[in-house]
């Protein structure tokens, strides 16, 4: 089971944080900080695993990947395969790339809601449900269409409809 997904930039600013068990905001902040503390001290071109037991408790592993200015981090327990998790990060980044056409950190900064949609389609309650980026893009686009449809109908006559109801 996946416990947490994090994306943070090389300065340690979180860009996406998802925890599949409830964590208080203080605890979240602490976890992100300690993960970054270890990540930033690691050299390039070395293995992508970290000893996560000291941060997340026993039976937890952590893999990360470094893309441009961002770290993608996955925390999981022994029911997941480490290499499969690395692949999953790859799938996530590929999907982002397809959704945003050459994704960069700014896309992630400004598309908070969409990033979460993508992630939620991929990982559901800590379990991996979709690993094909094509399928993911399809689902995400459909959801976005639905979202904007439900918004656009009401955007202009919003106040009008409010009056009408009165």
């Amino acid at each position, binding site marked *: *089971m996946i416990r947490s997904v994090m994306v943070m930039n090389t300065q340690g*600013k*979180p*860009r*996406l*944080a998802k925890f*599949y068990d*409830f964590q*208080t*905001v*203080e605890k*979240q*902040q602490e976890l992100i900080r300690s993960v970054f503390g270890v990540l930033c001290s*690691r*050299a390039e*071109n*070395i*293995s*992508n*695993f*970290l*000893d996560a037991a000291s941060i997340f408790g026993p039976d937890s592993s952590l893999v990360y990947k470094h893309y441009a200015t961002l770290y993608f981090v996955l925390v999981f327990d*022994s*029911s997941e*395969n*480490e*290499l*499969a998790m*690395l*692949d999953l990060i790859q799938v996530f980044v590929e999907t982002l790339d397809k959704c945003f056409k050459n994704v960069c950190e700014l896309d992630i*900064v*400004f598309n*908070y*809601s969409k990033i*979460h*949609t993508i992630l*939620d389609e991929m990982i*559901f*309650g*800590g*379990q*991996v*449900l*979709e*690993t094909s980026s094509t399928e993911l893009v399809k*689902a995400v686009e*459909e*959801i976005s269409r*639905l*979202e*904007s*449809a*439900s*918004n656009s109908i*009401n955007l202009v006559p*919003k*106040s009008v409809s*409010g009056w009408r109801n009165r």
Partner: protein
Amino acid sequence: MASTTSSIMDTLFQRTLEDLIKGLRLQLIGESAFISKALEEIRREIKSTDPHTKSNALQKLSYLSSLHHFDMSWAAFHVVEVMSSSRFSHKKIGYHAASLSFSDSTPVLLLITNQLRKDLTNPNNEFEVSLALECLSRIATTDLCRDLTPEIFTLLSSTKIFVRKKAIALVLRVFEKYPDAVKVCFKRLVENLDSTDPHIVSAVVGVFCELTSNDPKSYLPLAPEFYRILVDSKNNWVLIKMLKIFAKLVLLEPRLSKRVVEPVCEHMRRTGAKSLMFECVRTVVSSLSEHEQAVKLAVVKIRELLLDDDPNLKYLGLNALSIVAPKHLWAVLENKEVVIKWLSDEDPNIKRESLRLVMAMVSENNVVEICRVLVNYALKSDPEFCNEILGSVLSTCSRNLYEIVNDFDWYVSLLGEMSRILHCQQGDEIENQLIDISMRVRDVRPELVRVGRDLLIDPALLSNHFLYRILSAAAWVSGEYVEFSRNPFELIEALLQPRTNLLPPSIRAIYIQSAFKVLIFCLHSYLLQRESTASSYPDTLALSELASKREMPEGSDLATFKAPSHSEQDEVFNPRVSNQSSEELSVGNGGDRTINHGQTSTPVTSENIFTYEAVVNQLNLIELALGPLTGSHDVEILERVRNLLCFIELIKGEILESLVQKEENLNSAEMKSSKIIKLMSDAFSEELGPVSVSAQERVPIPEGLVLKENLNDLEMICGDIQLPSSISFSLVSTHYEEGVGASLPDLQSKEELEPPSEATSLLAEHRKRHGLYYLTSEKNDIVANDYPPANDPKLQDDQNNDTEDLVKLTEQLLVSKKRPNQAKPRPVVVKLDGDFVPVSAKRPGPKDDSLSGAVQEVLLGNDTRTSTSRSNPSDKSSSKRKGKEKLITDPSSELNENLGDAEKLDHENPSSRRSKHRTHGKERRHKSPGKIREEREENGQKEKKKSSHRHARHKTRQRADVPLNVVSETPVIPDFLL
């Protein structure tokens, strides 16, 4: 009206999330100021009646909560409001906020049940259903699960894959929170395993993987279904999960492994995906390690991983190797040069793994060399890894009471060497081991004192605070075993050197106490020596007195035999040494006598150092060094300084006088001071032995002793003074008072003292039993000289190529099983019954009994059905299942031949088993659901009773029991798989 206007204003000029992010990035007024302003806006906007404004505000709040860590639990009610909006975009924001911020204790959870039910059953919009499912997967509580189980059950067979896979994944949380849902949903969940859609299968397998990892036993009956997927599936994700499941199941049911091992190996050979290949390897090495062929194949694959350029694969290869190491060390040895090469890898993960593997290769034949090279390696690595190396050397060598250490002299000097490494932070561990060894291993004490002295006299070490604990151990050892010291005066000087004021008070107190012990030893030696020169008889008295005190009748013989004949100083002035030797004599054979004696007294140099001037010098030195400390603020120091100074005060006069009277034939033994000295010396010379952890418990508490009340009083009186907890009590005799005070802070767990006779008798017993293995001490001496010194100067210059060195030595040592010149006998290591903390491999029981119970109940039902249908071949409903059975039965029949009698017997009378099941099933049907649970519990209890009974039975009877066992243990496994 005003509120409407503000609401409209809010709506028209509200910042969107994008505006908020832009503002944050611009940072015109600083981040925290900006955010607090934004939060203020949000608090206002979120109360708006306009759903758009409200949801917008909630979205901003979610953002701030998620990425800037601001609490949003206060907005829980607004979250519920937004969730219930009819617009998809609002609903989505609401659900996202809920899954972000709700916990089990959020009060408004009670309000959302109906909303969730409505969304879950929405027939038109699968994405709304999906939103609700997603949210539930994070926030579902027991109540929610109970109330929504029917809806989730319906969704489990939804035609929309998009929804069904999420419903399946949600079942995991539902089962965890509300085990009774198993009764409803389990069957449908299992049916989904047969689905043709890969998404569905992947989701179900994922759920079962999680369920199995918590409680494997309950899912054994599903093994046939899993097996089919393992063989048929082409999806790597699914296969990985399947391997995870079987890795757990195989451990419970060994017969399963014979079936599984072939497909696993097949996948391992065939697959191109590294992740699947690694998972196969891991499954084999962790769960199928008794299958020689499979392990061999896995090791080949591990080697592939190890030689890959990708550091991740290297790391995982090492990881797999360390799993395989305990059972198949050959696999590590085969790859040793690769493993050792990566001890110097730049990647800390890889370094650490290879260190662990190198330590796994350590045995008593190569421990000296491996440790030597590792310590040299530690010298040049970064502080963190240096300490990891030292830590693993320490823990490996001390494992199981220094099991692999044969040569304690070497090990003790290694400890000394390790303490001197610049980055060494293992002070506590080294301290413990030094003291532990000093008490357990009698033969190593001379070397220990030497190592301790080297550490104590080096003033540079006093500036490294990581070493303080080691120094305290060194000080204690030098005080306690001062009789082995070459130059006790040097020790006193070292213990009182000016830089000791850098030490923390507790350790300084130990220094002072040790100095006290050394001084007593010196004075006593001085007196004895003087007496022996003065006349020939008083020391006979003294020695026989000492000896008889230790209940050694031979001791007095020895003393009388020795005293007149030996006039050399070194024999006589050292009563404790001779005493020691007499002790050994008493247990050894008479032939050793003189040799033994000669050997033990060598530590003290032959020239006479206990001169009058030296003694007086020492007394002056101590007075000078400790005088200022009488004003110390630390109780421990103050106490010990006072003791020492008062003692000197007592005896100094007479010692000085004695010089004047020297020429007269005085009766010095009756001098007051010499009596005191003798008394003190006796007190200190009693040996401290290791004590079993449980020793304290065995001492009965005397009647009428009330400890607690007094202690409470004490706390009231001196509540703020920090008392070292162990000092106050646990004294065996008053003689010990001084020694105990100093040593206890070090000993901690060894709070009580043991009469020395126990260790001695142990030694005697050992010698009696294994006399064959005791070499004569003369030989011993020679061999010791042969032994390469641990800190060979040669090593200093080949530090750079120690990797190759290690490779070489492993080649030599790991292959050849026995060292040719392993002539040195292992000294006796005193062991106590309390030392072995039994490593109880207590398997963590299933986390959720009710869940496993529920699952077993459902599956047991399944099984009953299967077996009844088997006995009734014309039953059409089970035809599909039957077909499957047949498919698998064929290979299993030949397999059965290989199985033990147990299984054969089982197959010979299947009717009894079947009938048992049938009656079981019948009983079931008559009972009300409430009773079923009771019955199951009863069964469980029966099973427990049986198993405990079984264990108690004798081995010979076990065979007869086996068929019964198979039935009772695994009533749920269909035999066609086995």
